[in-house]
């Protein structure tokens, strides 16, 4: 009984994180802001869904596959986000007008 409450609670929280992350993907003004909002929030939301499924299912093959999915997502999603942001900055996509500081460009100027 309490296992079902915790599991479905985690699934609901994860779906709410997913939805608000995608809302940030639509609403924010810049590539980097969108990446920062959407990647963290959607990664943690899907991790919450899979953790809830593991708590509901227990130690059978479905639960172990859910744990494996959490490990894969937490390894791959920040790596992909870092690669995309690096490539976007290298290919001269402009930042937003309200941006205060761009330390990556300052470091490149200091190296040269």
């Amino acid at each position, binding site marked *: 009984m309490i296992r079902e409450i915790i599991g479905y609670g985690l*699934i*609901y929280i*994860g*779906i709410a994180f*997913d*939805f608000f*992350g*995608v*809302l940030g*993907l*639509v609403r924010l003004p810049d*590539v980097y802001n*969108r*990446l920062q909002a*959407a*990647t963290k929030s*959607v*990664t943690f*939301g*899907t991790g919450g*869904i*899979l953790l809830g*499924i593991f708590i*509901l*299912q227990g130690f*059978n*093959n*479905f639960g172990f*596959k*859910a744990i*494996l*999915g959490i490990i*894969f*997502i937490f390894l*791959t*999603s920040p*790596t*992909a*986000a870092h*690669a*995309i942001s*690096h*490539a*976007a900055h*290298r*290919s001269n*996509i402009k930042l937003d007008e309200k941006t205060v500081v761009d330390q990556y460009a300052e470091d490149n100027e200091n190296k040269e």
Partner: protein
Amino acid sequence: MKIFRWILGIIILSILAYFNFFVYEGEIIFKLINVILFASLFVLYRVIFGPSAADRIVSIDIFGVLIIGLLAIIGLFYDESFYMDIALIWGLMSFIASLAFAKILERRHLDD
């Protein structure tokens, strides 16, 4: 004016949540899929109307993570564990696709 826009957005979101996002009528677990389907619709909006190429790549990356959660909930509903296999393979393929798109955006060769 800004408060009016916030109130309008909250009213639209509550109407969508009350009528279950107008997608599918079914059991309570299966209704959760409607939220993820609606979020995927937002992601497709950013894919179509994104101003730059990096926006589209970010959206494809986020879409891959959303599909993992969608397939996990479908597998929980039908109590079959092979949906989780499809989700794992989808996640790894989405990661490789994101890295390849980032390299293409940076105009480097794929074997660099």
